[in-house]
């Protein structure tokens, strides 16, 4: 194409009257059909065509050996392999070691599913046995997916420059480049024919560069016939060349994709630890008070033991009212109080599931429900464990009151050992109210007439006062 571009203006500039009048012989020796200019152009055209044919032959003949040819589409193996080059790879024999350090063609997962062929270099053994890390020479990072031997379709053996360019232009829609190449090829064929050496003629200027080849003005009939004979194979050659190169479109396309990565590594999530809210050594005591335990009605029954520590006053109870022991500031009582305080501390650091309302009623799911102000349980409060016997319920406020007529009911596997009513002040259970769970009060606990506690009542700083109630201590199995 470039040759034609310079060819066209040349005669108009040089072929002026001035040049003609100076020396027609010199002009013809340069610009004539048998002149130097045409000679150089013809030789260049011929070399171009033969070079293309030869490269094409290099790119296709090894296919007969069972080698694999693919047109590289991208430049991540630059500078050695450019887009448009054809890579010929030979199959990797079963017994051959994986060619570490060499360029291989392999199948890699393609974006959007499927696989595509990649030509990259094996740079290192992979993290696990039998895998290999690959990388494009021009890439700053390794390929993300390690390959195995089975992925390798061949080892790079021959690299044929440029041959794949026309097919790549076609397949990627760069028609401008493709048409330019097409024109250049046919122009080269035309030039080669036209400037092919012939017998000397004496026909003068008619063989000027501007003359049309085969226009009928030149030479005798035999010469023209001879030239036609030469022309046909040359045209055929060019046509075959174009066809073969275009046919390279059907060659496999291999990618040498550029790739780069950035990552955010070691994103760590560590679960905290929390106390499992153990009753500890307090578990054998149904009633635990700091200052004293009082009872003012005669029909109180307590299943289990009771303890006072550091106080030692127990009044209004006779021996038959308590099935267990009555520990007044004994070691057992002091240990029980220590563990009850630990329990309170463990509860206080639990994460809050949600805010508790001032008036609690209806259904409550497992969790830690807190309120800074007082809490009153009204009506029927159902603690629903949802089938999880390990579910924990914490209801915490500045005081906890069980209103007259209210009740606490356990449902779906809720355990009275896992229910905690926590007060930073007092806990009051009004007359006749059935309660399940552990009452844990910083200050006094008051159990009114006929209250029924299935669980425990622990006052950490104050007293526990009762009026004819019943306390049942649940088993501590869970």
């Amino acid at each position, binding site marked *: 194409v470039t040759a034609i571009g310079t060819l066209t203006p040349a005669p108009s500039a040089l072929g002026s009257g001035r040049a003609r009048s100076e020396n027609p012989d010199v002009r013809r020796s340069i610009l004539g059909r048998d002149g130097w200019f045409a000679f150089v152009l013809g030789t260049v055209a*011929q070399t171009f065509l033969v070079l293309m044919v030869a490269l094409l032959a290099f790119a296709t003949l090894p296919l007969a050996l069972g080698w694999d040819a693919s047109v590289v589409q*991208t430049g991540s193996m630059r500078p050695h392999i450019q887009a448009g080059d054809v890579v010929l790879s030979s199959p990797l024999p079963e017994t051959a070691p994986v060619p570490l350090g*060499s360029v291989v063609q392999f199948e890699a997962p393609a974006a959007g599913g499927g696989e595509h062929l990649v030509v990259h270099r094996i740079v290192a053994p992979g993290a696990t046995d039998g895998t290999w890390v690959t990388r494009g020479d*021009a890439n700053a990072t390794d390929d993300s997916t390690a390959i195995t031997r089975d992925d390798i379709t061949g080892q790079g053996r021959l690299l*044929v420059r440029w041959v794949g360019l026309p097919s*790549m232009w076609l397949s990627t829609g760069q028609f401008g480049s493709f048409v330019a190449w097409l024109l250049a090829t046919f122009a080269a064929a035309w030039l080669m024919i036209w400037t092919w050496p012939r017998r000397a003629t004496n026909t003068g200027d008619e063989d000027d560069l501007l003359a049309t080849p085969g226009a009928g003005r030149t030479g005798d009939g035999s010469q023209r016939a001879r030239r036609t004979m030469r022309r046909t194979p040359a045209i055929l050659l060019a046509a075959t060349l174009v066809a073969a190169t275009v046919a390279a479109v059907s060659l496999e396309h291999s990618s040498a994709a550029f790739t*780069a990565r*950035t990552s955010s590594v070691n994103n760590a999530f560590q679960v905290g630890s929390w106390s499992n809210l153990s009753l500890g050594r307090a578990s054998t005591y149904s009633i635990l008070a700091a200052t004293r335990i009082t009872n003012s009605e005669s029909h109180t029954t307590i299943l289990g033991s009771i303890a006072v520590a550091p106080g030692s006053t127990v009044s209004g109870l006779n021996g038959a009212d308590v099935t267990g022991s009555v520990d007044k500031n004994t070691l057992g009582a002091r240990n029980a109080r220590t563990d009850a305080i630990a329990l309170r501390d463990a509860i206080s650091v639990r994460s809050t599931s949600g805010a508790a309302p001032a008036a609690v009623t209806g259904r409550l799911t497992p969790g830690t429900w807190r309120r800074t102000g007082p809490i009153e349980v009204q009506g029927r409060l159902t603690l629903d464990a949802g089938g999880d*016997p390990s579910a924990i319920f914490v209801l915490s406020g500045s005081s906890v009151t069980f209103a007259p007529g209210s009740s606490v009911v356990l449902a779906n596997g809720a355990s009275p050992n896992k229910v905690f009513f926590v007060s930073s002040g007092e806990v009051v259970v009004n007359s006749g109210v059935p309660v399940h769970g552990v009452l844990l009060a910083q200050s006094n606990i008051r159990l009114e007439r006929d209250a029924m506690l299935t669980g425990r009542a622990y006052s950490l700083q104050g007293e526990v006062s009762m009026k004819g109630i019943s306390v049942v201590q649940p088993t501590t199995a869970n």
Partner: protein
Amino acid sequence: MSAPSRNFRRVAALAAAPIAILAAGALVWQSSSAAFTASTRNAGNEWSTGQVDLTDDDKGMAGFDVTNLVPGQTGERCLVVRSGSSVPGEVRAYTQNLTATDPVLADRIKFRVEKGTGGTFASCTGFVADPGALPAASLTYLSTANMNYATGGGSWITAGTPGETRTYRGSWTFDTTGMTQQQIDSLQGSTVSVDLVWELQSKDVATS
């Protein structure tokens, strides 16, 4: 000055073909040996000229380093990914290297990645998500469903203009729904760790 003689022209015409064939052979031999017999990558370091690169604004810090995790806890982090690529391509996000001291925890960290604009590593303020993000999924699931470039998500088509950015927001929940307290308790102290990777691959089209 006389025109080239016919004999000279014939010799040149006949010699041109073998010379061209020899040249083709030499070219193939030279380029093949350069590409395929050297056993290490070239020292040219052409990549350093920045044909492609991908960076983020985390300055090497982990996006998530959460300790004392409690049930129901949530969090988020934004990461600005910048492409320095001069060729068009596609960025995809995926997970790698999932390790967990208790596999149950990996099931229980629900993670969601959204692509969008705005926000920084320091704060997600101003982040606007593109529509179409997938819902949250467990780390266990992500580690098998989004494990490499081919299966990656959060696709971002880059135009090939160096300096393009997108923000990715990762949000997580420690979801203990449906677990018993005993199962939750057994997760205490356990740790899960995962790498998030953004990978850019150039499109398979010629660029020159």
